[in-house]
């Protein structure tokens, strides 16, 4: 796909990239909301979920979007208007930029360079500013408390998230996500190379740390102190309505999808299908679908945990990050580094 783009002029290639990004974000967010938030949780609670709009309620999502678009976009009287209005866009921009580094196939990528996962971690941290802007700009105590809790949590869990990635980077010898996929596709398990070497086998500790830290970064239960509905209404989103609430909502689910996709690329082999040549042109079509399948599986885990566990207390979740996950991730890096040199 991108080999074709090289022959187009700059603005044409850019338009196609933006359109592909929009489709990817909205499609992923929509799939996750329908499959997990509407249906999976309903089945877990022995009910049917939405059934009226479309077959099996599949058009419920469009109805919800229509509902949010009709609602009035209210700005609280004492709010800081510009900061309040800009905040959802900052969060959503961070999500879109995260998507840029993800490879979907041997030639199906937006950009591919050595920055890869480093760039993803950098732009992912920008969303914290949007959350702080929302929390402060709303001029509401619930929002401010929610924003502060979210920030404290995101800072704490960004560290284990980054450190968990380092093990994979050491093993793959590259930060390029495309390179990490190829390293897994060309890898061998004790000389047996039929399914490559997905890093979840060698980096199981890193994978578990990454998933826990990801759950916290997404502020999903059990790490949902920032949006604890029984004490803070919905935290930093409390004062938002209409389109801007919808943006936060899309951002939340799209970020869950994108982070899961990053986890899938790092630990589950990304777009690679065992048995095919990694350069096979077929993978440009099959790859994004395979990646999407892995995203659905990983987000299933995220939402399964979300709907199962009770909430952590603030001190418990800080202790888990600083006293358990960070040392564990550091130990994982040391062990990986030593094994990399020795073996």
């Amino acid at each position, binding site marked *: 796909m991108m080999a074709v783009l090289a022959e187009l*002029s*700059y*603005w044409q290639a850019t338009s196609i990239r933006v359109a592909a990004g929009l489709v990817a974000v909205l499609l992923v967010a929509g799939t996750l909301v329908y499959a997990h938030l509407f249906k999976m949780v309903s089945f877990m609670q022995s009910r049917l979920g939405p059934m009226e709009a479309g077959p099996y309620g599949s058009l419920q999502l469009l109805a919800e979007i229509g509902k949010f678009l009709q609602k009035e976009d209210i700005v609280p009287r*004492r709010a*800081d208007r510009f*900061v309040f209005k800009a905040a959802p866009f900052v969060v959503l921009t961070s999500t879109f930029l995260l998507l840029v580094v993800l490879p979907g196939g041997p030639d199906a990528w937006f950009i591919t*360079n*050595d*920055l890869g996962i*480093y*760039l993803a*971690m*950098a*732009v992912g*941290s*920008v969303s*914290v*500013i949007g959350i*702080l*802007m929302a*929390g*402060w700009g709303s*001029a509401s105590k619930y929002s*401010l408390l929610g*924003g*502060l809790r979210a*920030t*404290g949590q995101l*800072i704490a869990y*960004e560290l284990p998230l980054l450190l968990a990635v380092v093990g994979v980077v050491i093993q793959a010898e590259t*930060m390029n996500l495309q390179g990490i996929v190829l390293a897994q596709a060309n890898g061998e398990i004790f000389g047996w190379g039929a399914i490559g070497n997905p890093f979840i086998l060698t980096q199981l500790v890193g994978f578990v740390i990454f998933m826990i830290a990801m759950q916290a970064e997404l502020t999903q239960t059990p790490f949902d102190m920032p949006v604890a509905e029984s004490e803070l209404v919905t935290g930093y989103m409390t004062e938002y309505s209409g389109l801007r609430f919808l943006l936060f909502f899309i951002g939340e689910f799209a970020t869950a999808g994108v982070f899961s996709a990053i986890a899938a690329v790092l630990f589950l082999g990304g777009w690679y299908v065992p048995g095919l040549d990694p350069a096979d042109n077929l993978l440009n079509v099959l790859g994004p679908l395979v990646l999407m399948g892995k995203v659905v599986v990983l987000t299933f885990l995220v939402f399964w945990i979300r709907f199962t566990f009770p909430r952590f207390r603030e001190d418990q979740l800080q202790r888990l990050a600083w006293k358990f996950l960070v040392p564990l991730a550091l130990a994982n890096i040391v062990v990986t580094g030593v094994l990399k040199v020795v073996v």
Partner: protein
Amino acid sequence: MTAAGVLAAGAAGGDLFVAQNVFFGVIALVMIVSAIRCVTTRNVVHAALWLVLVLAGAAAQFILLGSEFVAVTQVLVYIGAIIVLFLFGIMLTKASMGDDDSVATEKRLMASLVAVLLAVVMGIALLDSYSDTRLVIDEPQRFGVVSDAIFSQYIVAFEAVSVLLLAALIGAIVVARKE
């Protein structure tokens, strides 16, 4: 002709980078306006948010110069960590909505004097050293090149900085701790 074509022709014919120069000007303008608003606004949170724009502009300039590692690090460290800590600290202590007239009124004269002095000294130093130098950008400075340089040529400096940062970290804990 495509934008990339213009660039390539410019690079081949002489070292005239039209697109880079235009964007340098646009980003520099945004940075200057944001920097001025950052020090003139009477709202502390707004000042921090204007600073975000200045730092993001600096990252964009580094991208134009082809040093991707410095640009991404700028975003990760300054925007993702330092500004977040600024905002977090401000909001945790006193996040007054609206303008705060007590912000920087009495020391304004002295501060602007120091700023002008610093700008003049640095400007003269830069002009003196680099006014005849032509910037050569053949290709972006790749990540691997930077890491190779840090871990071979500059390994002693790198380790020294690490120890210094560790000392600062321990010092901060000692200062903050109550016996």
